[in-house]
């Protein structure tokens, strides 16, 4: 049904004593063509048994004038109430309709019945202004490209015969060219020509009302707000380019997206309701290659923009390529993918645009740069001390590529080497980094580390890619510097550095994970709860750093500052996943139970 109401609601006030036949208000409906004629009906919730006050009103089927069929008198009111509001519903059709009005365009009419007599005409300016522009809703809307016609009655019909000796006339002014005029006979506001929303979305014509009697003449002004409703009358177009070159290399993860292309449309696209009918875009991958259809999809979103469309709302559609499945590291090919975008509600022929994606997929070799990796550590390092990180080429860029590392003893050392030497290799172990695809080397057996016969240790690191089982290996050399004093060789019992509450205690503790064999003290200086709180750590490079890494997570006592998930006592801020992000004064822990407090030695505690 092309017909629509140019207003969302109508309001009017009716007084006691206004006799049957008084016009109350006039509704308007905009049609599609000259041949169409609106038919207006009052609608009742239970049409088979309309309410008792239904006969009170008469709605002229063709003019849309609602009038009273009954004189409102005092007895209709309960004396305790001054006014009440009775909303009605009006529907409209383009041909006579007897029943089943469901689904027809609807507008709400709200009548305020006032338990009082009609106020006199009034002489003061405010009263005259009200005569001109009664308290009505000043918003109207017109669909673009539509047939012109009357959109609103300006006069207050209930006052027509209350002020017979007043001559009221209207005119309309606009600072921009606006196709509005007044029908002087019917005092209706007319839109005189079809409108183009893409040219202008709102009009604010100024209504000028002239009130004249034989003794005086006065003018009043009010601004109307007319919104122009949109229709899908613009085809989609591409501004910059319709082609995107995409290179897929280190990111092979399902869901990853690449390459954005933009399609423009001068029409608006309502976000709601979702399956909105206006300006709906759908797209088709122009290929029946099963592999491509299995691997790739094109995703789409749109947003409203104004500036780029000459300060009139329009839509920018964004399209990007996305991986539907994990892409193997061995995949190596180039392909072109065309994508047809169709503006489904655009009537014209050019409602489509073709986008082109030139896709290059490079293989990802699992490979170590052929060099011997050298790591040094002190023999005093305690168990879980981190020695270093090892990584296949480009491992830090990998997304969706899973590589596992393990240590093996080199072939050369296998055969002609005594059992003692063989046992040296338990000194070092490797763990899988949680943040990226690197391996973390750490001290696993301090007894072996400290034995004099265990000199520089040579290992083979084997990296294995999980999906295709691709492997790479390389040689690493762990150089053990500094000899060891006797006292350190016996005692293999380690505390948690985090238990240290002051520098003195801390630097004496042989803590788990201590790279130098002793814990390291970090002195904070800030007042209040701060990220640089004072604390005792096995290795200030990795603990605390806000991240419970692969080695730290092997034992809660290595770095509870990063790894504890227990409640923390005292002023603190929790880490995102675990640990202490910020603490007050000194933070120390008994196993995973951590405390942060100001150790005010100088602040005597009197009792």
């Amino acid at each position, binding site marked *: 049904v092309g017909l629509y109401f140019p207003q969302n609601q109508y309001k009017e*006030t009716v007084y006691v004593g206004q006799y049957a036949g008084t016009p109350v208000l006039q509704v308007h409906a905009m049609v599609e063509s000259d041949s169409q004629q609106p038919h207006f009906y009052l609608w009742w919730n239970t049409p088979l048994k309309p309410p008792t006050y239904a006969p009170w009103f008469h709605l002229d089927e063709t003019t849309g004038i609602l009038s009273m069929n009954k004189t409102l008198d005092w007895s209709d009111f309960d004396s305790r109430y001054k006014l009440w509001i009775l909303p009605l519903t009006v529907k409209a059709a383009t041909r006579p309709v007897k029943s089943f009005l469901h689904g027809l365009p609807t507008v*709400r009419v709200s009548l305020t019945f006032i338990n009082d007599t009609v106020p006199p005409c009034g002489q003061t300016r405010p009263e005259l202004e009200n005569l001109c522009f009664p308290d009505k809703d000043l918003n109207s809307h017109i669909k673009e490209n539509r047939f012109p016609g009357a959109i609103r009655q300006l006069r207050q019909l209930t006052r027509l015969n209350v002020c017979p000796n007043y001559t009221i006339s209207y005119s309309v002014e606009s600072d921009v060219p606006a196709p509005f005029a007044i029908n002087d006979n019917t005092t209706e506001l007319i839109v005189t020509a079809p409108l183009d929303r893409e040219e202008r979305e709102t009009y604010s014509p100024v209504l000028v009302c002239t009130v004249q009697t034989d003794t005086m003449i006065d003018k009043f002004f009010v601004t109307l707000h007319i919104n122009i409703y949109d229709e899908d009358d613009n085809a989609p177009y591409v501004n910059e380019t319709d082609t995107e070159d995409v290179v897929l290399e280190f990111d092979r993860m399902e869901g990853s997206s690449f390459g954005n292309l933009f399609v423009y449309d001068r029409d608006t696209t309502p976000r709601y309701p979702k399956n909105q009918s206006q300006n709906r875009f759908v797209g088709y991958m122009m290929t029946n290659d099963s592999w491509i259809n299995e691997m790739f999809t094109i995703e789409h979103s749109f947003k409203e923009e104004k500036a780029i469309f000459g300060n009139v709302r329009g839509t920018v559609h964004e399209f990007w390529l996305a991986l539907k499945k994990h892409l193997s590291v061995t995949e190596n090919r180039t392909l072109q993918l065309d994508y047809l975008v169709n503006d489904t509600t655009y009537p014209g022929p050019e409602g489509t645009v073709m986008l082109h994606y030139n896709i290059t997929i490079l293989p990802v070799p699992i490979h170590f740069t052929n060099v011997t990796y050298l790591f040094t550590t002190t023999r005093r390092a305690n168990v879980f001390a981190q020695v270093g990180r090892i990584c296949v080429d480009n491992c830090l860029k990998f997304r969706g590529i899973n590589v596992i590392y393990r240590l093996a003893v080199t072939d050369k050392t296998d055969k002609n080497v005594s059992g003692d030497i063989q046992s040296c290799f338990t000194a070092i172990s490797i763990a899988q980094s949680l943040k990226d695809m690197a391996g973390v080397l750490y001290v696993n057996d301090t007894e072996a580390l400290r034995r004099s016969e265990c000199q520089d240790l040579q290992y083979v690191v084997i990296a294995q890619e999980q999906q295709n089982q691709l492997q790479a290996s390389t040689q690493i050399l762990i150089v053990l510097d500094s000899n060891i004093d006797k006292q350190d060789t016996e005692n293999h019992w380690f505390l948690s550095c985090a238990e240290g509450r002051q520098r003195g205690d801390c630097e004496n503790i042989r803590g788990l994970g201590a790279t130098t064999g002793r814990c390291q003290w970090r002195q904070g200086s800030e007042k209040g709860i701060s990220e640089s709180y004072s604390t005792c750590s096995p290795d200030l490079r990795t603990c605390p750093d806000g991240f419970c890494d692969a080695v730290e997570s092997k034992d809660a006592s290595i770095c509870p500052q990063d790894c504890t998930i227990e409640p923390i006592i005292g002023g603190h801020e929790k880490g995102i996943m675990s640990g202490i992000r910020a603490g007050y004064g000194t933070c120390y822990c008994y196993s995973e139970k951590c405390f942060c407090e100001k150790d005010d030695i100088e602040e005597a505690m009197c009792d």
Partner: protein
Amino acid sequence: GSSYSGLAGTGAHGWVDCVRASDMCNQNPQCSSRYRVMRQCLVGRERDTMLANRECQAALEVLLVSPLYDCRCKRGMKKELQCLQSYWSIHMGLTEGREFYETSPYEPVMPVRHPDAFRLASIISGMHTVTPKANTCSDPSKTCNPCLDAAKACNLNNTCKKQRSTYIATCSKGEPCNRKRCHKALRQFLDRVPTDYSHQLLFCPCQDLGCAERRRQTIVPFCSFEDKVKPYCLELRKNCRQDPLCRSRLADFHMNCMVSQHTVSSCPNEDNYQACLASYAGLIGTDMTPNYVDASFTNWTVSPWCTCKGSGNQEEECQSFLKDFTENMCLRNAIQAFGYGTDSLSHKAESVPSTPSMKPGLETSISTSEPLDNPNDVQPEDEANGKGNVPKWNLSKGYIGGDEPLLEPSSGFDGLTRPKGPP
């Protein structure tokens, strides 16, 4: 038809609560069968065409004369949610579902005789909260922060402190936080803590940035209010209306805070600010949770978390929905009156021209012909006569029956004008 004279156990004002009403309907064979039919009519997508069919119409007519039609619910009552579900199960059938305003399922509030009686509660003797009038804090040496005083008052009261700590802890736990649990804790706080405390925290009057930011933070907005993407307001309203609690609180807010041309302060029910504030607070903890949009203290604005961008042709309706929060004269005056005292209000007269039909001094009280969402369909006249000496047709109450002169709030109809657009 059978009548339901045995309306025993009605609320103080003659309202039957909808839980009782549906029990009574279920005990009546005719009513319960029609009730079942009506629920079938409302299920499924072709709701409109279903409502047009003969059987649904017949069901509707029976239900219109049952207690279910005229029942109400009470904020904080036992089985409140069940009551609201019963209410909507029938009222959803009476509207085409696209009403801009809906009738509130909550019992209408009695008008406060003297709007000036809207006083601040001094919470604890000896503890000076904000003096009602010119808002000078009690201790001149300290910077004046009424919101901090409100937090103190709460912390010194066991119930308030416990409930406040519970919702804060719930809302600030986890990354991302659990918004559903946070909303529940907020609703629990607002239900269990006296409004003396909760409204102080929500509507404390600020004169500096620190205070205004503390006021904005009251509901832990990063969890209860903000979200990565701002939803579209009319979609937010639709989602809200699919949840009986949110739908009821939104209808209640519209009803008690709807700007009325016919009262001095622009609030309905003769300037009942308390009702407006209570129904605004009632939205907190639902999908339609409103909050201060920033920490400005002079020209503050409240709004739900949504946008009208991407409206297409619904820009007008969307803006109109949003303005019921961001440019609501009644709500602004109610919040202003709570904090700064009533003489700081911008009276309706200056801002909105009074309608010609209003004689000065005319004591205006609004009664609408609700509770029909679509009042065109009122009970048949003969039913009314059967109830003793009820006036022939009590238009002012908008429906037949009922004998007590209740001042009902303006209905949830579009009937009342909204604040005029910019001149």
